[in-house]
């Protein structure tokens, strides 16, 4: 070939972050545009419901308002957004590159696998966390708006579709955890479908474990006791929308006691007779353990911290795995 090269090659000292941003934008543009559009539409719908639900229907305590019912469904989105990030964003991220062998191509440029991975984590991860935070904030805004317009709140602090999971920082932590989990599974399995399935199972498992097993115990629960002969007042706790932890019976020493089966097997007994039967069995009080609703903020912070720790561990795992075992 006798063509002469007139343009001299471009020489730089290093590959910059703008270059890595370019790659991510070019490579994941449809994923980013698609997710961004969905989130925007969803946020608009949540904001619309905040305005429309009080305006369009009755907002009394027991009134049925279809828009409030819809708001309850829409308000559940923060619960699954992190899962969607985990399964559809992160789980295919590295495995697809392994499957198409493009890791060898991209890591053969002037960029290390660590730097490539760091760009994915920092840029895509922060976008995912940002979108999740915006969704959570919007859902919380909608819930509080509807609550304010009603006699009694439609969205309780600790209920499944409630205020707890709408905290933007907590949503960001769920999304970051989902991202890190998907990434780690992607790096370890190197198979997109397997990574997606494992990510789905682990994400759901961890969230359920934390909700059911850990969340009620971030602080020692408050114990409300009622003498066995006294009037059981339940209004106190329920009005405050607490997180119910446990309930049962106490003996005279103040220790939890077994329920005396024989007292319940006698159907014909009146309430007083049942209480007397309890007293005869040594039971003096009923108790309810609960977390008061004013612990919402601190509990959200604790859970955020837990998921940030999970995220850090998983990112470390993905990092180590790709550096040690995953180069080709």
């Amino acid at each position, binding site marked *: *070939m006798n063509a002469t090269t007139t343009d001299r*090659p*471009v020489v*730089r000292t290093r590959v910059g972050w703008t270059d890595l941003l370019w790659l991510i934008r070019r490579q994941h543009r449809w994923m980013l545009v698609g997710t961004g559009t969905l989130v925007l539409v969803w946020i608009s719908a949540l904001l619309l419901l905040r305005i429309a639900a009080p305006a369009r229907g009755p907002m009394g305590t027991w009134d049925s308002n279809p828009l409030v019912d819809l708001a309850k469904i829409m308000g559940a989105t923060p619960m699954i957004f992190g899962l969607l990030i985990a399964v559809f964003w992160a789980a295919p991220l590295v495995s697809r590159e392994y499957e*198409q062998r493009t890791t*060898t*191509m*991209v*890591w053969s440029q002037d960029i290390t696998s660590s730097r490539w991975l760091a760009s994915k984590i920092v840029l895509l991860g922060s976008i995912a966390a940002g979108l999740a935070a915006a969704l959570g904030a919007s859902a919380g805004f909608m819930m509080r708006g509807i609550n304010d317009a009603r006699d009694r709140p439609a969205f309780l602090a600790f209920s499944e579709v409630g205020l707890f999971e709408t905290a933007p920082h907590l949503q960001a932590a769920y999304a970051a955890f989902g991202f890190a989990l998907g990434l780690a599974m992607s790096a370890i399995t190197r198979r997109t479908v397997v990574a997606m399935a494992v990510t789905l199972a682990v994400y759901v498992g961890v969230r359920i474990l934390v909700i059911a097993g850990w969340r009620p115990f971030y602080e020692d629960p408050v114990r409300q006791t009622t003498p066995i002969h006294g009037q059981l007042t339940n209004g106190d706790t329920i009005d405050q929308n607490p997180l119910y932890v446990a309930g049962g019976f106490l003996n005279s020493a103040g220790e939890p006691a077994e329920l005396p089966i024989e007292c319940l097997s006698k159907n014909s007994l009146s309430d007083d007779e049942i209480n007397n039967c309890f007293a005869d069995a040594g039971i003096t009080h009923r108790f309810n353990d609960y977390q008061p609703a004013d612990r919402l903020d601190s509990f959200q912070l604790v859970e955020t911290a837990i998921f940030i720790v999970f995220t850090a561990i998983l990112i470390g795992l993905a990092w180590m795995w790709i550096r040690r075992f995953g180069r080709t």
Partner: protein
Amino acid sequence: MRTVFEPSCATAVAVRAQELGKRYGNQWALRDCTFELPQGRVAALVGANGAGKTTLMSVLASLLKADEGSAHAVGRVAFVSQEKPVYRNFSAADMLRLGARLNIVWDQTRAVRWLERFEIPLDRACGKLSGGQHAQVAFALAIGSRPSVLILDEPLANLDPLARREVSQELLSEVAETGMTVLLSTHVVAELGGVADYLLLLARGRLLSGGDVDDLLASHVFITGPRSEVLPVASSAVLQARHHDNQSTFLLRLPDRQPRPFVGRPWSQRAVTLEDYVLAQLQSTRKGDDA
């Protein structure tokens, strides 16, 4: 690409491997591999399937970590793996943009010239290109990054015969223009003639032989004659002996810098081609293992 800038030393070695070893589990894919590849050469890495070619190349490209020994390449290394991977939803132009973004040296003119030479449409998604066109995009990306050492794993594998010859020629002219060193693996030995001027022969994870192709060929000779178990010349190392119905052929390794021995009729001698040499070497390992 691990970028190690080193002043070119007097010996002008482009790639140096010392007692290189890599194992997967308990299985050594590469063992005791020591060689020096001079700068500006086109080296062929030849070996049977599973000989460790891809492993060696991946280690040299810093995509795999060696378990023992060391590998070192002078300057920047570009590696094109066997699958010629490119992003399927990127156009060829996008792939060149990727090259420009992710490399500290980028020669757009050279990369575009390669694609134009092989008539690759710049604007079509790589996923819609043929396998051969795919490969050309991957080559253009590697060429554009202006590496000191270009490592190609089975570069000719999914190309048609004409494209094979053209790619080989283009590679040679790139070497001549830029002074880069090329290491390419192949098991299509017949197509190495006129392309490779350096040979690295791998068998079962070990380096069987290596060196300048002209030197290797000059130091070997075929001697053919009537069927005989005995050599007509003395004290030469027999690399291969083949006996047919009434003919025997011996491949001899000549002692250092010695001319070919004289053989009288009915014996005759002929020069060894690269293919002859490689096949004889590979065959000898197989026989050795059977024994």
